[in-house]
């Protein structure tokens, strides 16, 4: 065997200013809108062990039994090692699709397995949909606020993103209709409407049944695609189940995106998309170009896991756990947040969206909060136009009850200080301390007047 010389340095050679200029000259146009954010730098601090982070979007994977994981992986090693270590079909294994059919069936959907593609997480599904449908300058409509992780995807395909306000019943469909009318007059056809209808990330709100029906109707009337992103649908803690848009529409104008991340594990990077055959054909080609196939190993894991027939019990356990955590957070908000703050009361999912008086910038508040060893996500990332600076996203699934109480207390304290300071600066009398007794009539989202 020939000798391979030892590499002498573990890091790349340094980049000089001139190099940067040289590379910058090669960058594609789309990179000008792909930005790293200062928030990411600040988030480096949230990793400190003393910081209570309500900033994550993490499911609690500590609840997954390690013995069960070990048994499934052992079985794969013993019975299917060669196959599990091999490439797989671009669309995903039929067995994986069977598992997906079970999950979708639990919410009343029954798609044709041929309409399904297994993706590397739900995030890739968003990317592939954009890759298939969006040319630079095309109109994409989404909620305001929208899933912060979708914004960079839309931007990297240079979409012209327009956001439609939400209230406590989800996206304002009356405003959407108005927008569609305006676009039609301008001769512009939106490529799709992106929505997280159930327990939205970040707002926590759920699209009402009436609005769901109207949205699907609009899509049919105007032949516009709706991309329904439904990662949390099965994580409902109160209220009645709501039919997914896909079920209401039957799959003609709704592209459905699902994921195992929130009901099993985000680490296995397994999601899926369901689309009408002509669209699916292009998505498959896009997927092939992107990564050939989704991890075979983790698809085998899901197959083994579903074979145990315990997956719904595990979701039941998660629902119990997260319901308690949600209630603890809502209670803590009532106790520790000042009267001027409002927040949503989600019936499921992982997030609560709180809105503060408009003189408080949550980006700056985060700096103060980090000094008090607590973190949240400032609202700005959920908008494409710089709005959202008075709101924050709070996660209740990834931390335990004591941490939720203490985290919310710390945030409440820094807000109260800012409220008091502002009162002093403007001479207005404001409540210096948060209210002792929780008021029952705390407004969730400001209910918008129907236009």
């Amino acid at each position, binding site marked *: 065997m020939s000798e391979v010389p030892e590499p002498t*340095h573990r*890091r*790349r*050679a*340094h*980049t*000089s*200013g*001139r190099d*940067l200029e040289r590379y*910058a000259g090669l*960058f594609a146009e789309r*990179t*000008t809108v792909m*930005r*790293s*954010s*200062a928030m*990411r*730098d*600040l988030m*480096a*601090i949230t990793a*400190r062990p003393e910081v209570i982070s309500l900033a994550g979007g993490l499911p609690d994977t500590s609840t997954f039994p390690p013995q069960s994981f070990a048994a499934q992986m052992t079985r794969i090693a013993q019975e299917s090692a060669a196959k599990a270590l091999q490439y797989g079909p671009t669309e995903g294994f039929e067995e994986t699709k069977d598992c997906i059919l079970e999950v979708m069936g639990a919410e009343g959907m029954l798609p044709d397995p041929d309409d399904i593609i297994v993706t590397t997480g739900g995030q890739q599904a968003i990317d592939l949909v954009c890759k298939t449908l969006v040319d630079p300058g095309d109109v994409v409509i989404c909620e305001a606020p929208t899933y912060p992780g979708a914004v960079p995807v839309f931007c990297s395909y240079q979409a012209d993103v327009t956001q439609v306000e939400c209230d406590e019943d989800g996206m304002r469909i009356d405003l959407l209709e108005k927008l569609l009318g305006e676009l039609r007059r301008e001769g512009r056809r939106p490529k799709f409407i992106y929505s997280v209808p159930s327990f939205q990330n970040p707002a926590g709100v759920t699209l009402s049944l009436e609005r769901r029906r109207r949205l699907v109707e609009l899509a049919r009337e105007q032949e516009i695609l709706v991309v329904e992103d439904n990662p949390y649908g099965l994580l409902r803690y109160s209220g009645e189940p709501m039919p997914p848009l896909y079920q209401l529409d039957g799959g003609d104008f709704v592209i459905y995106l699902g994921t195992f991340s929130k009901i099993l594990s985000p680490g296995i990077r397994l999601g899926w998309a369901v689309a009408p055959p002509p669209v699916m054909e292009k998505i498959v080609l896009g997927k092939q170009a992107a990564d050939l196939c989704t991890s075979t190993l983790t698809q085998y894991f899901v197959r083994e896991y579903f074979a145990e027939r315990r997956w719904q019990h595990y979701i039941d356990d998660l629902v119990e756990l997260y319901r308690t955590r949600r209630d603890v957070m809502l209670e803590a908000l009532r106790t520790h947040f000042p009267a001027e703050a409002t927040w949503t009361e989600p019936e499921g999912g992982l997030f609560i969206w709180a809105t503060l008086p*408009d*003189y*408080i*910038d949550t980006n*700056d*508040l985060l*700096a*103060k909060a*980090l000094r008090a060893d607590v973190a949240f996500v400032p609202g700005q990332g959920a908008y494409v136009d710089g709005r959202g600076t008075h709101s924050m996203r709070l996660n209740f699934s990834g931390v335990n009850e004591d941490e939720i109480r203490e985290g919310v207390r710390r945030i409440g304290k820094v807000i109260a200080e*800012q409220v*008091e*300071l*502002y009162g*002093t*600066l*403007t*001479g207005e009398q404001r409540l210096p301390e948060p209210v002792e007794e929780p008021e029952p009539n705390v407004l969730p989202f400001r209910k918008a007047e129907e236009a």
Partner: protein
Amino acid sequence: MKVAVLKGGRSLERGVSLRSGARVEDALERLGHEVLPIDVGSDLVKRLVAEQPDVAFVAMHGAGGEDGTVQELLEILGVPFTGPGAAACARCMDKVQAKDAIDEAGLPTPDWFAFNQTAFREFGAADALGRLEETLGFPLVVKPSRGGSSLGVKFARTPGEVPQALVSAFSYDDRVVLERFVDGRELAVSILGDEPLPVVEAILLEGDRYDFEARYEIGRTRFVCPAELSAEEERAVTEAALATYRALGCTGFARVDLILGAEGPWLLEANAIPGLTDTSLLPQAAEAAGLSFEQLVERILDLALTPATH
């Protein structure tokens, strides 16, 4: 030589500092030094005592690493270190102190007033806001006194926007500066030892001038180095920057930020430990002067080990 690279820490600029530190470590390795990377935490003194480095390269930004705290410790331990000494760092970090020193040296800096929270909370300083707004005019700039990278810096275009801007600035520090806005070209002069490096001009391509995000990203701000200045402008800018550097007591290196207005340069502030990342201004200026990053790092080390430095 055994070089401890101090980086990270708990400041809001931890992320930038880790990038500066990694790049410095890489250069030091290439130069053949023994590198001891330290993400600064409660064991800093213990590690320095145990490891006995010949010199410490301070690649920290913001509170703790750039405000004289770490420098004070290094002075006590007798470990030579890069960049300005503890007193100069403290002066640069605090915009009120820095502006006082600049003003006392007879150098032009935009008019300002400084307040701490107590003034508002206990002494009714809000009632004086109208008067100082009259003096400074609009728009005015509101900044936390100690803070870096434009964090918490806001424009107020009308009197109504001042309280909100103050609330933001007070999120970072108990003291804030209200400063007259001066219009002009945004320039930075890095000084190495006693030598001013070529002037860098920051041209913002989009958005607000004071924007934290824009500073660390390729594509949003274009940096021109050397800046296109007339010989007279260049001399005025460089002399003003060097005078500021001396007035603040800086040694080793520092970066002076200023605005070149119609009447000449206005000194804004000095950064005791400017960034050393891929997109930072000091390395760009050094490169324009013909110094590679390795040469820059070596020169900074030499300055730290020259007895007269601190």
